[in-house]
């Protein structure tokens, strides 16, 4: 029952739903009773001022924080208490607010690490290398090369990520998340600290990913222009509570949002 949007993208049923999530760190309430859903194939934005609980919500979705109350439903099943890597295996990949790349490895290795959930050859085969292990490695290397081609980072394929400039590191991290070929992609402020040109590139990448790979995207972002253009639906958080939820236009004209977040007389 996917109704196509105007530019031909199919938005499906609910992929992920959080119900009455409450999260506190020793008395400090980060999130109070928040519920919203993310539909298959859409670009869902989560906005709010600093400290509104955006990143905490992302950490709850990616299984890093376990909420005191509330449930997380993923693809129709209630999520049991899981370790973060099990959540990743279910098909959720993410990028981090301040880049969490593996400094000791090259760009290519970082991207290949993104494919860990898909590689299974055991220790014995890896030791021999020639044969099944190498075949698996090459198959995954080809998929990663397509992502490298897609992001246009061929030239830095073999440079250690520690040496890359900020903009490129952000792109490599997006590449690592794409390599996981996840159902749901969580982007934590992908455009923070970028200049105009880099922002335009990143927007095009996000749109292409959603369009060509059909990946559902949950996007945390401050730049209102970007959010309004990119996202199909927006949820607004403020001081750990849900302020508004709807299409960009509905949210922009919602008085509560205007008063709390966009400043009066927007």
């Amino acid at each position, binding site marked *: 029952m996917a109704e196509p949007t105007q*530019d031909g993208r199919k938005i499906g049923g609910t992929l992920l739903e959080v119900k009455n999530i409450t999260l506190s760190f020793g008395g400090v309430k980060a999130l109070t009773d928040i519920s919203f859903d993310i539909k298959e194939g859409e670009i869902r934005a989560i906005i709010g001022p600093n400290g509104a609980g955006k990143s905490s919500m992302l950490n709850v979705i990616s299984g890093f924080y376990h909420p005191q109350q509330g449930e997380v439903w993923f693809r129709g099943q209630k999520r049991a208490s899981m370790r973060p890597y099990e959540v990743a295996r279910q098909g959720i990949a993410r990028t981090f607010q301040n880049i969490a790349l593996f400094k000791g490895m090259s760009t290519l290795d970082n991207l290949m690490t993104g494919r860990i959930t898909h590689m299974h050859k055991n220790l014995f085969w890896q030791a021999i290398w020639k044969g099944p292990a190498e075949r698996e490695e090459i198959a995954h290397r*080809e998929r990663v*090369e397509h992502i*490298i*081609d897609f992001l246009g980072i*061929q*030239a830095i*394929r073999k440079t250690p990520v520690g040496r890359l400039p900020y903009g490129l590191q952000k792109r490599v991290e997006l590449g690592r998340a794409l390599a996981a070929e996840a159902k749901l992609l969580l982007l934590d402020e992908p455009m923070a600290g970028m200049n105009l040109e880099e922002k335009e590139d990143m927007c095009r990448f996000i749109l292409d990913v959603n*369009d060509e790979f059909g990946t559902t995207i949950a996007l945390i972002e401050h730049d209102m222009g970007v959010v309004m253009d990119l996202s199909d639906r927006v949820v607004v958080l403020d001081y750990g509570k849900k302020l508004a939820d709807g299409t960009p236009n509905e949210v922009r004209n919602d008085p509560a949002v205007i008063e709390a977040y966009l400043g009066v007389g927007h």
Partner: protein
Amino acid sequence: MDHQSDTFPKLLNDNAQRFASRVAMREKDYGIWQSWTWAQMREEIVALANGLAALGFQRGDKLAIVGSNRPRLYWGICAAQCLGGIPVPVYQDSVADEMQYVLEHAEAKFVIAEDQEQVDKMLEIQERCPNMHHIIYDDPRGMRSYRHDHLHDFTEVQALGREFVKEHPEYVNQEIAKGQGSDISIFLYTSGTTGKPKGVVMTYDNIIMTARNSANFDKLTQYEEVLSYLPMAWVGDHIFSYGQAYVAGFCINCPESESTISTDLREIGPTYYFAPPRVFENILTTVTIRMHDAGKLKQRMYNYFMDVARKTGVKILNGESVGFSDKLLYSLGNVLVYAPLKNTMGFSRIRLAYTAGEAIGPEIFDFFRSLGINIKQLYGQTEAAVFITMQPDGQIFADTVGVPAPGVDVKIAENGEVIYRGPGVFHSYYKNEQSTRETKNTEGWVFTGDAGYFAENGHLKIIDRIKDVGRFNDGSMFAPKYIENKLKFFPHIKEAVAFGHERDYCTAFINIDLEAVGNWAERNNVPYASYQELAGNPQVYQMMLKSIEEVNRSLASDKLLSNSQIHRFLILHKELDPDDGELTRTRKVRRRIIAEKYGVLIDALYNGSKQCFIRTEVTFEDGRKGAIEANLHLMDVPTFTPVKEAA
């Protein structure tokens, strides 16, 4: 060989037999070099040909090729030729309007475009090209939501072809059999210094016979490796990466993208290399700049061994006998400097390198030859399918362009113009009988439009374009190109324009080379914020003055052009740019446009004024128009009394 194949599709069939498993083409993609053998390439081309036939491609139809060097675009050329059609490659970085003129003039019915950027240009000019029916694209990225009925993906067309061949198994083979040497094989549009580009019509004989003669002349084999990075619309690329490749059967390597050409050159290590002089010049400039930043010890070693190379390197390469100690010193230099230098440039495996299109500076030419790189000059033009004169091994000189190519006769007309005749002479200019008659007379002699003369050793020496060769007021010959080339041989001068026709003395505009001069400025901590500011810097003027004096000294000793020494010069405040129409696509000076645009400056040079204000219109990278103003200094240059002939 018995009756030799006289068209490229026939050559393709031969090669698919004799070199079936040898690699014919490679392309750096997804991190490694994807490769196709001659047999695989033939299968891909035949599938495309069938696809084109399925889309209604008739004999005689034109297929335009728009994009950088991609295997699929080279296959497009051969597929069109299989069906008796005519491929029309176009410069990929020309703007939409320039492409519109060429496509409409050639009545191109089909277009193979590389990627979204080129397809967008095609869609933009579609209404003004009624003949254009089908556009086929190679890289589908970004075009998923394009909804146009006559837009096809390359692989879809091939799939269509593989269906088509089921009903008409022999169709393509029959079409290939119909083809013969005299048929038209390709249209090559010249960049044309003045007016609209002209479509040079070349037959199979033109290209194949010239390719065969030149391949035998240089003993090319199927083991050559060539990197194809020059525009496909340029006759040089067509001969080296297509003509000679099909004749000799060697392998063509397409780089990953324009930005990775130097790393791909180093990875492939070609054995047969072609480049215009400006590419060699850039390499030399980067080498000298990087060596300036090296440690003292390394610099001293580098300079010492480069002197050794300058003394003996060229002789060793030419095979002349050199003292034992020199040979020993040179081999030590080879281990320490020359071989590693060639390795970083990607020239370690080069057996033969050609340069043409403009004169190359003597020290640039000798620099590469002293390293043991067999670089040779040739003189040619599109109308001659490239080869007019070539330098045979053993007779290589910096300032001449060699002896007439095999099968080509070269004469000097009474007005000093070089004329030639041979198998490579073009069929005609497409839909332009009048220029064809002007360029090619009834006995088949072609007028090159260049002035030149045969030196004592029988090698041709080119002076300048015949129509640019002017006369000073005192009647002596004024050859602007010859003077400009001498100026451009200095690394810090990028472009120069000389004036003197119907004047008392010679003057010149100078364009500094931002990279070389910028590097000099950094090392001597000379601050500059923009190109314009650096160009106006007095120290830079002194540097230019010193170089022009050197040119004057060498002109003084030249028997024909001794009194065209430069008396006054100025440094332009902006770089001459093809986008402003001041240069052609291959960076040749457009004198008429420059004369109109900078008239006020030229007059200032001749009325002795020290300063001159100028306001020029400029197009920025993204096509916006703007204007920049500047106050330029003009400076006098000491000249030398001509050296009288001793004998």
